C-alpha cells in the first residue's frame, strides 16, 4: 500500500547518520596521516584508506535493504532534496569526470570547458523541462513513463531497448575508472578489480534497489567531495597560501605560460574534434592551456557543449531519480542542489589541471634530464608518466613528457610533495564517485530490463517484480564485467558517446511527450527511432568520438538526431492522429503540480478495488504496468 506524499517524512536522523559517516572518514584520514609519520607502509596505508570506506558503504547498503516494491524502485519517495542532489551530482560527474575530464582539461585547457559547462546547463534543462513532470507521473523508469503516457507496451519495450547503449556505455566507463584506481593502489590485477567492483555494485543495487543506491551514493558522494576538497585545498595552500583553489589558480597563469614556452609549447591549429580529445594512454601535451579554440574550432566547441547539454538533460540514469523525493517542489530543489554541486566540481577541475601542469612543467620539462624528481620513477612504473630525452639535448621538453590523461588527478598530491596519505585520499575520492555513478547506471539498466522488457514480454509474470529486478541487475553486472575484461574501452569516449546517444534518442521524444498533449505513440516511436538510428549509423561509420572519425563529428550527428527526431515525431503525430482522450488527459494531469503521483493514485485505486472485491483476481498495479 503506497503512502500519500503528505504523510511521507524523511528519516529525522539522516543528518546524524551522515554526520557520523563524515566524522568516521575524517578520523580515518587523520589516523592514517599520523600512522604514515610513524612509519606505516604505503601499501597498508592505501589498502586501509580504500577498503575501510567500502566497508561503510556495504554496511549502509545492508541497512537499507528492502523487500517493498516502492522502496526498491523509488526509495519510498521520501528522499530529502539535498541527499538526492548528492547522488545526482555523483552520477553526472562520475569517476569519468573526476579523472578523465580533469585530464582532458589538462591537455586541452580552455577547449575542454565545453564538457563541464554542458553538464551544468543540461541539468538545468532537464530540471525545467522534464523532471517535475516525471515526478508527477511517478513511473519507476523512463521507458515505463513512455508506456504509461501512451498506454503502449510497444513504446515501453522500444524505449527500454534504446536505453541500453547509453546506460551500458556509462556503466562500463565508470567501472573501468574504479578498476583503474584499484589496480594502481591495491595489490590486484585489472580483471580481479573489475570482478570485485561488479560484485560490489551488484550487491549494493540488489540489496535495496533505489533505496540503497541513494543512501550508499550519498555516503560515496560525501567521501568523494571531502577527498577532493582536502587535497586540492592543501595544494592551493602550498602553492599560493590561500585555501581557495577556484580563485587562486588564475594567479598562476603567467608562471604556467612561461613554463609552457620554456618547455617548447606553441599555439596549435584545430584538427577535428575526435583527434582533439586525448586518449587514455601516455600522451604528450601539445597545446598551451589558455589558447582558445586551438584543438577544436568554435563550432566544434559549441556543438560539443550543446550535445552534452541535451544528453545530460535526457540521461536515463538522472531522470530515473525524478520520483524519489516527496513532492514536485522537492524534486526541483534536489535538481538545483545537484546542479550546484556539479558546478562546484566543474569550477575546481581546471584548478587541479593547472596545479598539476605547472608542477610537472616546472619540475620536469624545465629540469635537466639527469635531475628528475624521485617520484617520477614510481609513476613511470604505473604507466602514468613516461619521460625520455629523445632528442638528446639534456632536457625533457614538452614533447618528451608523456602523461596518462586519467592519472592527472592522482598524480597531483605526489607531484606537490604532499604526504602519501593524500594520494590515497585522492584515489579514495575517485573510486567513491565512480562507484556511486556505476551503481546508479547498473540499477537503471537492471530495473528497466526487469520492468520494461521482462514484465511486458512475460505475460504470465513467472517471476515477481523484485526477483526479476535482482536477476536483471546480477546479469547486467556480470555482462559488464565480462565485457570490460575482454574489450578495450576508453572511458571518456564511451561516456561522451553515451551522452550523445541519450540526447539523440530521448531528448526529442521526451520533449514531445511532456509538452505536447497531441503527441501520439507513433510520434514518440518515430522521434526515438530516428534519433537512435542516426547515432547507430554515426557509430557504425567510425564515430563515437573515435580517432578514426566519420565525416560528421559525433556531436553534430547527435544534434542532427535530435532535430530529425523532433521533425519525425511531429510529422508522425500529425499523420496518425490516434491520440486518445486518455493520453491527452494524462498529459494535462502530468502538468498539475498538486496531488499524488499519477502512478501512486492508480495503485491506490487498484488496492481499493481489490479490497472491495477480495474474490476477484489481483488487479495490476496500474493499467500500463
Amino acid at each position, binding site marked *: 500500500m503506497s503512502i500519500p506524499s503528505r504523510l511521507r517524512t524523511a528519516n529525522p536522523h539522516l543528518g546524524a547518520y551522515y554526520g557520523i559517516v563524515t566524522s568516521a572518514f575524517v578520523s580515518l584520514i587523520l589516523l592514517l596521516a599520523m600512522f604514515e609519520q610513524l612509519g606505516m607502509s604505503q601499501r597498508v596505508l592505501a589498502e586501509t584508506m580504500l577498503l575501510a570506506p567500502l566497508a561503510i558503504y556495504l554496511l549502509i547498503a545492508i541497512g537499507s535493504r528492502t523487500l517493498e516494491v516502492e522502496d526498491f524502485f523509488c526509495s519510498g519517495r521520501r528522499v530529502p532534496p539535498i541527499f538526492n542532489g548528492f547522488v545526482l551530482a555523483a552520477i553526472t560527474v562520475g569517476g569519468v569526470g573526476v579523472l578523465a575530464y580533469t585530464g582532458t582539461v589538462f591537455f586541452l585547457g*580552455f577547449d575542454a570547458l565545453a564538457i563541464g559547462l554542458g553538464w551544468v546547463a543540461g541539468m538545468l534543462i532537464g530540471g525545467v523541462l522534464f523532471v517535475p513532470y516525471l515526478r508527477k507521473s511517478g513511473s519507476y523508469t523512463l521507458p515505463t513513463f513512455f508506456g504509461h503516457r501512451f498506454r503502449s507496451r510497444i513504446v515501453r519495450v522500444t524505449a527500454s531497448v534504446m536505453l541500453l547503449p547509453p546506460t551500458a556505455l556509462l556503466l562500463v566507463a565508470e567501472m573501468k575508472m574504479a578498476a583503474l584506481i584499484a589496480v594502481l593502489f591495491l595489490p590486484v590485477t585489472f580483471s580481479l578489480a573489475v570482478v570485485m567492483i561488479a560484485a560490489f555494485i551488484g550487491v549494493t543495487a540488489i540489496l535495496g534497489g533505489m533505496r540503497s543506491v541513494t543512501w550508499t551514493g550519498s555516503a560515496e558522494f560525501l567521501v568523494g567531495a571531502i577527498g577532493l576538497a582536502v587535497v586540492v585545498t592543501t595544494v592551493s595552500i602550498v602553492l599560493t597560501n590561500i585555501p581557495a583553489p577556484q580563485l587562486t589558480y588564475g594567479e598562476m*597563469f603567467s608562471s604556467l605560460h612561461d613554463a609552457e614556452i620554456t618547455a617548447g609549447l606553441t599555439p596549435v591549429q584545430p584538427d577535428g574534434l575526435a583527434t582533439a580529445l586525448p586518449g587514455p594512454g601516455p600522451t604528450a601535451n601539445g597545446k598551451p592551456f589558455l589558447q582558445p579554440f586551438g584543438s577544436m574550432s568554435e563550432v566544434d566547441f559549441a556543438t560539443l557543449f550543446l550535445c552534452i547539454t541535451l544528453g545530460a538533460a535526457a540521461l536515463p540514469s538522472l531522470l530515473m531519480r525524478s520520483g524519489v523525493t516527496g513532492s514536485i517542489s522537492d524534486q526541483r530543489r534536489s535538481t538545483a542542489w545537484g546542479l550546484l554541486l556539479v558546478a562546484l566540481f566543474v569550477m575546481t577541475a581546471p584548478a587541479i589541471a593547472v596545479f598539476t601542469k605547472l608542477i610537472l612543467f616546472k619540475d620536469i620539462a624545465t629540469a635537466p634530464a639527469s635531475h628528475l624528481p624521485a617520484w617520477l620513477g614510481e609513476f613511470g612504473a604505473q604507466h602514468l608518466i613516461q619521460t625520455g630525452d629523445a632528442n638528446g639535448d639534456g632536457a625533457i621538453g614538452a614533447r618528451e613528457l608523456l602523461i596518462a590523461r586519467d592519472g592527472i588527478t592522482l598524480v597531483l598530491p605526489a607531484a606537490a610533495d604532499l604526504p602519501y596519505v593524500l594520494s590515497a585520499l585522492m584515489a579514495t575520492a575517485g573510486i567513491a564517485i565512480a562507484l556511486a555513478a556505476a551503481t546508479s547506471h547498473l540499477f537503471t539498466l537492471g530495473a528497466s530490463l526487469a520492468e520494461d522488457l521482462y514484465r511486458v514480454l512475460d505475460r504470465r509474470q513467472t517471476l515477481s517484480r523484485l526477483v526479476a529486478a535482482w536477476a536483471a541487475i546480477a546479469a547486467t553486472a556480470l555482462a559488464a564485467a565480462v565485457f570490460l575484461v575482454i574489450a578495450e574501452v576508453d572511458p571518456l569516449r564511451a561516456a561522451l558517446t553515451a551522452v550523445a546517444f541519450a540526447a539523440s534518442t530521448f531528448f526529442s521524444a521526451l520533449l514531445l511527450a511532456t509538452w505536447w498533449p497531441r503527441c501520439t505513440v507513433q510520434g514518440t516511436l518515430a522521434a526515438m527511432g530516428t534519433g537512435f538510428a542516426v547515432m547507430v549509423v554515426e557509430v557504425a561509420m567510425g564515430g563515437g568520438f573515435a580517432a578514426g572519425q566519420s565525416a560528421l563529428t559525433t556531436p553534430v550527428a547527435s544534434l542532427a538526431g535530435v532535430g530529425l527526431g523532433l521533425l519525425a515525431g511531429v510529422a508522425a503525430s500529425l499523420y496518425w492522429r490516434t491520440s486518445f482522450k486518455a493520453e491527452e488527459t494524462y498529459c494535462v494531469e502530468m502538468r498539475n503540480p498538486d496531488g499524488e503521483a499519477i502512478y501512486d493514485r492508480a495503485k491506490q485505486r487498484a488496492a481499493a478495488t481489490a479490497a472491495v472485491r477480495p474474490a476477484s483476481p489481483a488487479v495490476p498495479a496500474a493499467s500500463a504496468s
Partner: protein
Amino acid sequence: MTDHPARDRHQLRTLLLAIAILSTVLLAVFLTIGAAAWLNQYGFLHFPLGFYLLAQGLLIFVVVATFWFIRIQDRLDQARAENEELG
C-alpha cells in the same frame, strides 16, 4: 482556452518561464563562446575574461538562475492551487 482558466493560465506562465530561462542561459553561453577570444584581452580576478566566464562565470549564473526559477515556479504552482481552491 478551455473551461479551466486557472489551469490554462498556469500552463501558459510555466511555458513562458521555461522558455525565458532556457533561452537566456543558452543565449548567454553562445554569446560568450562567440566572444571568448575577444573577451580574453580583458582580465578579471587574474583570469582572462573569456576563460573566466566559461570556467566559472556562466556556471554561477546558471546556479543563480536555477534557484530563481524554482522560486518563481513555486509561486506559480501556489497561485494555481489557490485559484482552483477558490473555484
